[in-house]
């Protein structure tokens, strides 16, 4: 009973709005500090790779961006499912707020991958399993965003796009295991749970710092975006009226 009330408390936009507002500065702070440390380590401290030279430094943004884009997709599909099954408005909004950031990280992943592929493999792009399934994820993100904005009623838009997100979720494990299932040009797992890492510890640490920085960045921007969506969807409710009147008079936020 107490547990269900706890979740009800946070699933209400009225309580989530101020709560998430307190989280954002922390996420921004963590992202900024860790990105500064990660960039300093990645560009100035870590040694060049013995085979790839300095081109490997793209790893410090390529891997975090690709990981985040896949994690965001799974989280987005998860929120979409919660919204669809239990009819939770806040979950629907969370799913929608994650999509643009996920799409941006997918574009960054493709772009940095191409620029790393050219000096390493001799080609910007090849139609192999890993790259093709990853490109499909970009189309899924774009389809999701387009479908959501094409339907005027936000509840119906959320329901229709949730189905697309959930069905498209099958693509994420295919991307992940593609290097195992098929012969691809892309290298197999370098860092994976349950196996010893195959890269130098300083390089691994720098990459992990960037991964955490990208996590914090994602949390910050998706919370800011979901707060915008909450204001727009709840604009006729009394708590938004009170909040905005207070903020325009006292010039807060």
């Amino acid at each position, binding site marked *: 009973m107490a547990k269900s009330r706890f979740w009800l408390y946070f699933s209400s936009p009225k309580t989530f709005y101020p709560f998430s507002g307190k989280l954002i500065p922390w996420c921004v702070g963590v992202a900024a500090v860790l990105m500064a440390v990660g960039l300093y380590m990645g560009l*100035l401290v870590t040694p060049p790779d013995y085979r790839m030279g*300095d081109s490997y430094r*793209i790893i410090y943004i390529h891997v975090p961006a690709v990981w985040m884009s896949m994690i965001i997709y799974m989280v987005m599909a998860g929120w979409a499912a919660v919204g669809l099954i239990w009819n939770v408005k806040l979950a629907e909004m969370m799913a929608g707020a994650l999509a643009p950031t996920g799409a941006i990280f997918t574009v*960054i992943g493709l772009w940095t991958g191409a620029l790393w592929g050219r000096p390493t493999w001799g080609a910007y792009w090849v139609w192999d399993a890993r790259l093709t399934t990853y490109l499909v994820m970009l189309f899924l993100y774009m389809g999701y965003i387009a479908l959501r904005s094409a339907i005027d009623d936000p509840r119906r838009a959320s329901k229709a796009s949730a189905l697309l997100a959930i069905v498209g979720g099958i693509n994420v494990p295919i991307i992940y295991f593609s290097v195992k299932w098929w012969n691809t040009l892309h290298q197999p797992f370098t860092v994976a749970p349950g196996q010893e890492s195959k890269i130098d510890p300083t390089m691994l640490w720098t990459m992990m710092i960037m991964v955490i920085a990208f996590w914090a960045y994602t949390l910050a921007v998706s919370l800011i975006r979901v707060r915008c969506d909450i204001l*727009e969807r709840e604009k006729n409710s009394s708590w938004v009226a009170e909040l905005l009147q207070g903020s325009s008079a006292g010039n807060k936020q």
Partner: protein
Amino acid sequence: MIWSSWSEFIEMGGYAGFVWWSYGVTVVFMVGEVVLLSKRKRTIIQRLGRFIRADRSKRNAE
């Protein structure tokens, strides 16, 4: 610090184009997302604030 000079850092062991285009485009996308988002937030708060004040003054007049 592994670089002995500024120009050596810029050259990136001969991979300057690949490395700097990767980092540059990433920075543009991420900073761009933050800028557009904060702009959107400001517009919403201003617009809804105006809307709410107008609504209240209309109700007071009635």
